């Protein structure tokens, strides 16, 4: 018993000693503003607006679904050391949203969805009570988000306001180009084929912006299970509209999709998996799909090549 107590005391002391060191707060190496974001999309936008003046880290890395995100130890440092935090809002972050609201009293912690006018937000397709949080699939909304980020950064660091504004404008031009590209490409898809069947309905804004009909198998959250009735409904739609392809997502399993394809085949409708779309998560860092624009382009190309 005594030995146990001794061991216990020693471990505790060693640990506390190890803990005490290695605390550094705020400010990056060259005086950058340290910013933590929840999703990769927001991190990308902040990087584009802030340029060299910011150091950005995302809590949810490539391939991590916000609905299934699990915090790790380093997230404490990321949240604790940041000068500013940006998150999506509209309940995308689940319960973490409450925590983030509380952190706002300590340091600027902003939901980018605050930068959007209410009338531009749309209801979730399945649940009329809830606002669809997947705002990054509407390029116009995303341009507003970029503005909002520029506003908030300027408030934090007024002396750099001009740089932020200029960066934001340049980036918005890129988004505008992307929009033209998307419209031109998607125009090649005949009207009757404009049906997007995906594993979960993250594409509501996309559908409105580019005049698609979206059908998701699972509900809003990737967590909820799909019902047998859902699958049968979708199979019927596939057969009725002669849909050529369905899409998988980087953050959702293929199992549900496969049962849909099988069901359609049994009823004589040949359906292929059109390819992988990025929905909640972006691609690996360093690749083209690891940026917001690259990810969006990838989605457009995949959709066009399989539905044309």
């Amino acid at each position, binding site marked *: 018993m005594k030995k146990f107590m001794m061991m*216990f005391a020693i471990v505790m002391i060693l640990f506390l000693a190890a803990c005490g060191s290695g605390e550094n707060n705020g400010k990056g190496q060259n005086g950058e503003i340290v910013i933590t974001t929840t999703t990769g999309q927001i991190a990308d936008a902040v990087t584009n607006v802030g340029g060299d003046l910011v150091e950005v880290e995302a809590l949810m890395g490539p391939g991590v679904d916000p609905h299934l995100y*699990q*915090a*790790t130890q380093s997230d404490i440092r990321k*949240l604790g050391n940041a000068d500013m935090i940006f998150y999506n809002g509209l309940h995308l972050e689940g319960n973490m949203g409450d925590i983030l609201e*509380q952190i706002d009293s300590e340091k600027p912690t902003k939901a980018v969805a605050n930068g959007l006018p209410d009338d531009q937000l749309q209801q979730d397709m399945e649940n009329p009570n809830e606002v669809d949080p997947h705002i990054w699939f509407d390029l116009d909304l995303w341009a507003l988000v970029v503005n909002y980020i520029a506003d908030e950064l300027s408030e934090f660091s007024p002396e750099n306001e001009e740089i932020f504004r200029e960066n934001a404008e340049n980036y918005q031009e890129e988004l505008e180009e992307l929009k033209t590209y998307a419209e031109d490409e998607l125009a090649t898809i005949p009207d009757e084929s404009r049906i997007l069947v995906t594993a979960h309905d993250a594409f509501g804004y996309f559908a409105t912006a580019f005049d698609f009909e979206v059908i998701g198998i699972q509900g809003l959250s990737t967590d909820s299970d799909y019902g047998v009735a859902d699958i049968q409904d979708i199979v019927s739609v596939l057969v009725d509209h002669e849909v050529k392809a369905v899409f998988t997502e980087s953050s959702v399993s293929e199992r549900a999709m496969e049962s849909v394809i099988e069901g359609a085949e049994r009823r004589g409708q040949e359906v292929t998996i059109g390819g992988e779309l990025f929905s909640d998560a972006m691609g690996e860092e360093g690749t083209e799909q690891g940026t917001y624009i690259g990810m969006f382009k990838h989605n457009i190309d995949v959709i066009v090549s399989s539905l044309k």
Partner: protein
Amino acid sequence: MSYEMWIILTGSLVGVTCGTIGCLLIIRKMAMLSDGISHTVLLGIVLAYLISQSLSSIYMLIGALIIGMLTAFLVQFLYNRGIHTDASIGIVFTSLFALGVFLVSIYARQVHLDIDHVLMGEITFVPWNRLTLFGVDLGPQAVWMLGTVLVINTVILIIFYEPIKISSFDPVLATALGINVVFIHYLLMGMVSLSIVASFESVGSILVVTMLIVPGATAYLMTKRLSTMIAVSAMVGILGSVVGYAIAYWFDVSIAGAMSVALGLIFAIVFILQLIIKKMYQRSHRGKIHVT
């Protein structure tokens, strides 16, 4: 206090609270009841939401507490009618949990009320979920909540220590001595539910189930005295959260997960040591017999 210290403190509070309660469950051979209750509270949370239409944690706490008690009551009810404890826990917990899932998928689909999200406090975010009264920042909410539960548990345990001990080891003797065994049972179940719900809110389900069973089981290997067992169990709980935090820091993983792993490791080490000590004791004993 740094963020790290708050998290370790929270983990330790869960360790002590659940470690203590866990001992009482283990000597009553009801360890699995903690697993059961930690699932059935979902039903309580869902019902609380459906009735109050709010996601506020006070309603959820009350709902969870009531269903926790109901679980204990139903298990006891079935047991009294001749079904073994393990079987009756299995029956009650799966059906109440299933009812909870059922209700979520019918009524609460819109809300982010999926099992993971409601139940999951996340220990990583504890330092930021603060309690402010009259504009004064009093530190993390979880620490206050767990601290309160710990005080309540300790007071009950001190007042009712003898009756709890006797009725756990020998219910017949306890009844003969005039102890209200049924009251003690539900008192204990109330403590279990309260501890589970409070810990759930703060640190999430994995860690709660681990903390309820593993420290007590480890302590049970080392001693057979209830008072010592409770003390050792509480210390194992603290040790687990400290070592677990170190593991989480090292590998940059989920803190609650790492603490559970640490507790598993502690149990394994104690188990092996205890085997070795037993072997050595037997050998030296045999040797003595040979000599004389």
